[in-house]
């Protein structure tokens, strides 16, 4: 995979000018963020399809070239900030549930996926949310994704229940469909924006070891074409 070289390329040429770390020029500065996003959800809820649709924009398994979907990276530009998203898939089987904390420690965001036709998978999401809140408090941005929204007729998790629960725990709720490519881009974009806000908030506190690498850099004189989602 090209993940190793990615970070370096992204920041090359960052220090072309003088080191200007003056405080008041926020607008002119481009920042680079790298976020870790964990993907939680029971098996068969479509985690893999969701992330592959996002990163590769492909659904049918025959068309997908990547060998693996367990660790994927995508670079996007969000309001002038360069963001590298590292998406960590987790094993959703019940027997691996106890390993959750190892996966999601130091993560900036979590996407909790459930299947709208499967009530159990939603209950599982509730358990994870509880765990995440306990382990990471409010440091982590949560998004709940009701996947397989194309199977509306077989829905067993009611809209009100899901949305009210998400609002209660401070998560954003999305209905997604990996099959129809519905709402997935929006989901990741929203999560990224949230993560940027929250990391800027924690950065001011400067507590202990940072797990986000924030590199300040001056805006290059001629701004590069900010095509969204291009990853070389």
């Amino acid at each position, binding site marked *: *995979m090209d*993940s*190793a070289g990615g*970070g*370096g390329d992204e*920041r*090359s*040429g*960052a*220090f072309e000018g*003088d*080191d200007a*770390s003056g405080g008041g020029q926020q607008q002119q500065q481009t920042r680079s963020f*790298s976020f*870790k996003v964990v993907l939680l959800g029971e*098996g068969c809820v479509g*985690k*893999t399809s969701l992330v*592959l649709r996002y990163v590769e924009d492909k659904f049918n*398994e025959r068309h*997908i070239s*990547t*060998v*693996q*979907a*367990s*660790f994927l*990276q995508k670079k996007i530009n969000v309001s002038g900030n360069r963001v590298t998203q*590292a998406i*960590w*898939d*987790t*094993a*959703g*089987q019940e*027997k*691996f549930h*106890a*390993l959750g904390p*190892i*996966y999601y420690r*130091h993560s900036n965001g979590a996407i909790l996926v459930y299947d709208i036709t499967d009530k159990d998978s939603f209950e599982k999401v509730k358990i994870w949310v509880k765990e995440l809140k306990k382990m990471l408090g409010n440091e982590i941005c949560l998004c709940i994704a009701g996947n397989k929204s194309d199977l509306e007729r077989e829905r067993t998790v009611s809209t009100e229940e899901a949305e009210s629960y998400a609002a209660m725990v401070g998560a954003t709720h999305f209905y997604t469909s990996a099959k129809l490519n519905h709402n997935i881009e929006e989901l990741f974009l929203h999560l990224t924006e949230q993560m940027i806000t929250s990391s800027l908030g924690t950065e001011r506190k400067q507590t202990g*070891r*940072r*797990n986000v*690498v924030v*590199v300040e850099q001056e805006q290059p004189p001629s701004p590069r074409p900010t095509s969204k989602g291009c990853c070389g």
Partner: protein
Amino acid sequence: MNSQYGHGGRGGPYNNQAASSISHSRGSKLKISAQDLMCKNNCGHYGNEVQEGYCSVCYKLYKQQQQLRQQQYAESPRDNDSFNIFGRSAISSGFATIPKAAKLSFDSLSSPLSGFAKFEEKKRHQAGHKSKSFRSVFRKSPTPSPSKSPDLKATSSKERPSSASSTPNHLGSSSPKMSPQRPQDTEKEQIRNEINTFLLQFPKQIVHDVVVKVKQCEAELTRACRTSNMAVEEISDIAQDFYRNFKGKVDMVPCYQSMTADDKELLMDLIEKYLTISLYKELFSPINTTTDDEDKDLLLQNRIRSLNWITCKHLDVILNERDQQVRDYVFQSINAIIGMDSVKPPQEKLLCITQCSHRILEALGMSKQAPTSADDFLPTLIYIVIKANPTRLQSNINFITRFCNASRLMSGESGYFFTNLCCVVSFIQNMKGESLSMTEEEFEDYVSGRTIPSESWDNYFSESLHSMEEMSNDLIEMKSRHDDFIRNVDVLRKNMQQKQEWVSKQVNVILKRTPLTFKLRKVPTNIDDEDVCSSQPSLPAPLQPVVISKLVKDVNLEPNKEPPPVTPTSTTTELRSSSDRPNSEDNCSNSNQDITATEIQSASQKSEIEIPVALEQEESRDIRGADQVLSSQMSLTDEFLSAEEKSGSEEETFYNEKKVESEAEKSSE
């Protein structure tokens, strides 16, 4: 106890030594008795080849003793001159510039080398029949000079991984680079050189700063390691703080801004490498501090050993182990994870984990034909770790966590795979019967070795058994296909029979309805002959026909045109003749042919009338062929009408009948 050892011996491959021999000679030399795996000190624990045949506890003691010895050597006066007299390395270094051949000849002549060659030979011999540690051999072999021993030690431990291929020449050429002490120093030297060459391209200011900072940190870490009661976590904090601060400095301080971002990354990597290599002994599962890494290693190793019976099925691993290529990938991943212990810098350890993971992903990709998700990956990694049983796994993980640059560890692919490895260790430690979907009693039985489940490594060992199984599978498949074929043949036969019956029934029905009689083709009768032979004696003499000549005959025919030469198509006359039979009978009364002809004509007339009715019946009976029947009926009636006009022959109707029949048949198909 005995059973446990037997168990261990059976599942030998989880030991490094055996696993590497799998990859070398698949299935050939895999029987290793339990005794060979034991620690050389006979302390009752298992030994390890990487630890020169000792268990980890004994190895530590042994290493300490060795270190002590080496310190004595170091303290003894040893300037270059004395080495030139005694030391082989010094001699070789003196000849470092001369061509290899000359050096070789020198080597073969020099007296220390003869002993050395003997040692080499012994070593090769040893490696040939049993991959034991060379330590014992070395002790037995006579050493000509005391100063040579550390060098040899270094050589032997360095050469160990590829012992079989090493030659005196190779040794001779590699030794000048070595410092006369431990291999660690060699690596340290190498990384120092690497860092120096890297720094050469930058301004002096940077070089100076880097060197000063790194030296400071090194000294600090060394001091911390020497202080007893210093928790390893604190040492780790020192290192991590240094990484972070230095990274911040590199990013912020103006003089570093001439470096590109890539170079900065590389610099950080090199510094990390240098620190961890130079202080590896102190930092890796330190003894003088309050860690219990050693005990954890032992516990984990025993735990994995007791789980060596686990197969793909237990963990729902989807590896297709029957595939040769998949098995190759599995071996490669096992080798990669075992290799983690033999490299020193955390980055390289991470690289081993990443390589192992990539091999696994490739194997999974071949087994499944779909992108691998964590749902498949994690169980497989567990399986691989159980089969590999990597040496000092816990210590290695702790070492990486403590001394790898934290910012790197938390992001990127290697971080992900490392996290997965941590998950695997945690899972293995907490494994219960439930997690393998079996009862607790069953699980306990397996773990304690009371019961041994079948075929944990069978897919890898018994090549012929495996191919036999493959063949029998093929045979089963062929048999099922054969059965299918036979069944299809039966069905076809039955169908054909039914068809035949049906056709014959249909034919019978039609035949009953319209009995088929064949009429011979009419032969034109020679009126003259007839007249001549039969004659009408009743006729008066002048009326009696008399053959005069051919011409006359022709003339004679004119009035006798009534019965013309009958052709199948012109039945006009016959139809008429049937209506005025007496006349025709009068005309050609005694001709047998004619009689049959008229009979057929009448019959055919009857059938001509009947056909439409019959067709109607057919139509009602057979709905499937309704359209065709209808159309054929239409055409038939048309033809019938035209036949009435043109007075179609009975043969035509027969033909039509046949046509209807065949069409009905076609429709029924």
